């Protein structure tokens, strides 16, 4: 019988819960307490930082918020200790949400800058706590607070509480890892902009993950306050807590739910071994050395390494993957479109970058069922237009109405769910996800919001349609350019869009590959999708499109039937320049 992971977590927890009944010296229980404590801290950190890639150095702040919540409530307001724990979680979560609401709106506060910002928040909080009545500069003594008498010895009680938290935290981390939330967070990790445009509500997901992460850290802080029974600002808000949790998670593998727990156990055990052997300084040095070796030689961590080995190595990519003429589920037409009205209508659309008017008052309509070619020289505003319609850029002026609905004020992920999908000129797959997961992701976050199983089936159909079935379990890095372009296509199609924006899908392909692509795009249209086709390959534009719109310097300069429009003098001038004798 196969035991589900939750079962294993519960069994492990119960087994460890038996330890106090062995009547070991309190010393061992304290060691196990510390191990559980670090498992909670590292795993909670990982829920935001490991999954979504927003490495926080502010975990000390949330941990500290919990510590001081318990210290304050238990000593100044005489709350029973156990009742302070939910308050710790709440205070820390609110702090996280407050920070996240400001920071997660900022485009460029990722990576090192996010780490630095959260670290700065820690020091600000520390200063405030130190100088107000919360601490007062003396530290808070909790020796008068009663330890709940769950078990005979306080050390057993502490251990049991920490164990319960560790089990709970692991269960939460695993649940998120398997859930849609986890998938979205991993997408954010790989490419946040793409995730948003494909329908992942990135802002909300980051806030949720941050809140959960902070709440768990706060709770661990509350427990630890009573465990050490003397809380000081210097010890609480030091840089050691965030560095330790980062170290543990990275060591174990931050892309795996169990990674931080593995790392925490290894490092706590190691430090204990050296301390017990009276070489605590050497122990710290050993931890430093391990960190260096792990980052340099297996940046994906212990678990990442182990699991990475299990992934079947795919053979060298085949020279070309022929699309199989499969019969995928038909794309549904847009939601209740007036059959004669336009599917998409854009009016007066404008966007400027530092004074350069990339899109300057564009009006255009896309009719249901057509392939509209969008052409123009480099820099004419085609890609910007796509980025505006898909919601990646905020427009300066103008209106975008899709299927009778004004898209004003919608986030990119909401626009994706109305039924607009796009591809990228330079493919931007999620690098750490298999080809299949890349495609299934849009099925889960697209208009239909399929469940995990249905999304996989949907992904299978579109992979077959694009000829990528035998690459389903490969990572995008194993694909050649042609296959990556088709992966882009499959990923966009799996959202079952009614409007598909194709941004130069043909660039960089060989002539025979272009022929395949053209056939595939025809098939897509036959399924019921409406397509906006941005392309430089004129042969394809002429063969495929029903109508074209020519952009130059951000303005529409011509519109009409392909053959006719491309011969107009102003279009020729835009492409080739003015003739000398004119």
């Amino acid at each position, binding site marked *: 019988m196969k035991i589900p992971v939750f079962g294993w977590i519960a069994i492990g927890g119960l087994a460890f819960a038996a330890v106090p009944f062995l009547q070991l010296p309190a010393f061992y229980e304290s060691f196990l307490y510390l191990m559980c404590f670090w498992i909670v801290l590292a795993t909670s950190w990982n829920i935001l930082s490991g999954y979504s890639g927003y490495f926080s150095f502010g975990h000390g702040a949330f941990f500290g918020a919990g510590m001081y919540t318990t210290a304050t409530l238990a000593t100044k307001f005489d709350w029973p200790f156990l009742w302070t724990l939910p308050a710790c979680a709440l205070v820390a979560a609110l702090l996280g949400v407050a920070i996240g609401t400001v920071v997660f709106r900022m485009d460029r506060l990722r990576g090192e800058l996010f*780490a630095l910002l959260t670290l700065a928040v820690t020091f600000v909080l520390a200063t405030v706590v130190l100088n107000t009545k919360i601490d007062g500069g003396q530290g808070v003594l909790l020796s008068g607070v009663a330890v709940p008498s769950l078990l005979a010895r306080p050390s057993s009680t502490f251990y049991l509480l920490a164990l319960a938290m560790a089990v709970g935290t692991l269960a939460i981390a695993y649940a998120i890892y398997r859930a849609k939330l986890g998938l979205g967070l991993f997408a954010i990790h790989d490419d946040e902009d793409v995730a948003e445009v494909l329908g992942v509500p990135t802002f909300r997901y980051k806030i949720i993950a941050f809140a959960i992460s902070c709440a768990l850290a706060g709770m661990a802080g509350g427990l630890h306050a009573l465990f050490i029974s003397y809380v000081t600002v210097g010890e609480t808000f030091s840089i050691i807590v965030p560095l330790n949790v980062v170290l543990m998670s990275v060591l174990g593998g931050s892309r795996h739910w169990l990674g931080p727990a593995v790392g925490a156990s290894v490092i706590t055990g190691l430090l204990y071994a050296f301390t017990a052997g009276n070489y605590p300084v050497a122990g710290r040095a050993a*931890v430093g050395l*391990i960190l*260096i070796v792990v*980052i340099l030689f297996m940046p994906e961590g212990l678990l990442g390494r182990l699991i990475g080995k299990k992934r079947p190595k795919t053979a060298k990519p085949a020279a070309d993957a022929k699309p199989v003429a499969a019969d995928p589920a038909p794309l549904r037409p847009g939601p209740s479109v007036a059959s004669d009205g336009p599917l998409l209508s854009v009016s007066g659309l404008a966007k400027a970058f530092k004074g350069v008017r990339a899109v300057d008052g564009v009006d255009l309509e896309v009719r249901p069922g057509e392939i509209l070619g969008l052409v123009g020289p480099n820099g004419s505003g085609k890609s910007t237009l796509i980025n505006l319609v898909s919601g990646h850029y905020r427009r300066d002026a103008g209106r975008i109405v899709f299927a009778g609905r004004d898209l004003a004020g919608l986030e990119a992920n909401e626009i994706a769910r109305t039924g607009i999908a796009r591809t990228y000129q330079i493919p931007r797959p999620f690098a750490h996800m298999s080809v299949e997961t890349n495609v299934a992701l849009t099925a889960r976050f697209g208009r239909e919001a399929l469940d995990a199983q249905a999304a996989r089936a949907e992904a299978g159909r579109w992979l077959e349609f694009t000829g990528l079935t035998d690459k389903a379990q490969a990572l995008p890095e194993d694909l050649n350019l042609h296959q990556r372009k088709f992966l882009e296509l499959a990923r966009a199609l799996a959202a079952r869009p009614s409007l598909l924006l194709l941004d130069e899908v043909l660039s960089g392909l060989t002539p025979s590959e272009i022929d395949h692509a053209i056939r595939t795009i025809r098939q897509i249209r036959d399924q019921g999708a409406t397509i906006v086709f941005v392309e430089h390959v004129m042969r394809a534009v002429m063969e495929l499109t029903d109508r074209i719109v020519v952009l130059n310097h951000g303005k529409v300069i011509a519109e009409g039937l392909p053959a006719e429009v491309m011969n107009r003098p102003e279009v020729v001038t835009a492409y080739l320049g003015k003739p000398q004798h004119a």
Partner: protein
Amino acid sequence: MMPSPTLLGQAVLSGIFIGALYGLLGLGLSLSWGMLRQINLAHFALAFLGAYLTYQLTSVGGLDPLLTLFIVAPAFFLFGVGMHALLARFAITPFNSLLVTFGLTVIIESLIQGIWTADYRRMETHYGTMKYKLGAFYIPFTEFLTLVMAALLSIGTWAILRHTDLGKAMRAAAEDGPIAAAFGVNERRLALMLSGFSAGCAGVAGVCLALSYTLAPAQIYAWIGVVFAAVMIGGLGNPLGPLIAGAVIGISEALTMAVIAPAWAPLVSFSLLILVLLVRGKRT
């Protein structure tokens, strides 16, 4: 109650002096972050190692602390070159460089603790008691020296980067390595030199630390936050940035200490840092 003008003036002066040390520590950090894309957390540990070496050479070896500069700085230059030669073998992201150098920090900290113990150490020299009097203000020699060194190094680096071929090559390599290489810039050698220079700066900062401060291994971590603030505010890779930003932070801290209370001082620098990050991160 407002403190006297003399007290405020003295506060501004001491702010400038501590700011100079922020700037000196930040210089190497800013260069390696901005130009090599390496966030070298070990910079702080190196500075303290330099300080301890100075302490050892002076207290036990009987050397003049200023002479130790000529031992510590070249030795650290070599260390920096070696470190980069090692790191350059691995394609390492900025964030991972932070983690690797944190590992190095822990190792150096353990080394310091193993040799000099965790006790406080204070280097006693005749420089320590030297003071100049300028009007109503006192200027301690050691801190003045720190300011001079920070200014010399920062302005010198700025001039080299700005006006020499070597500096132009470095900036080109930092901007776009492969393109610079295509134009004949030996990117690898420049990176090694830059890393060495950066570590050398840490050595100089270490000598200054030993001259003016009491040393303890755990102190390594005390400087990280505020120096990062100076580096960020000053602008990555800008050699004058850390010194100017450091002075601004130092002065605002010193004034906060004088006017409100010493313990509130960190609030100023970190609020400033948060503000700078938020302004830079604003959606375009």
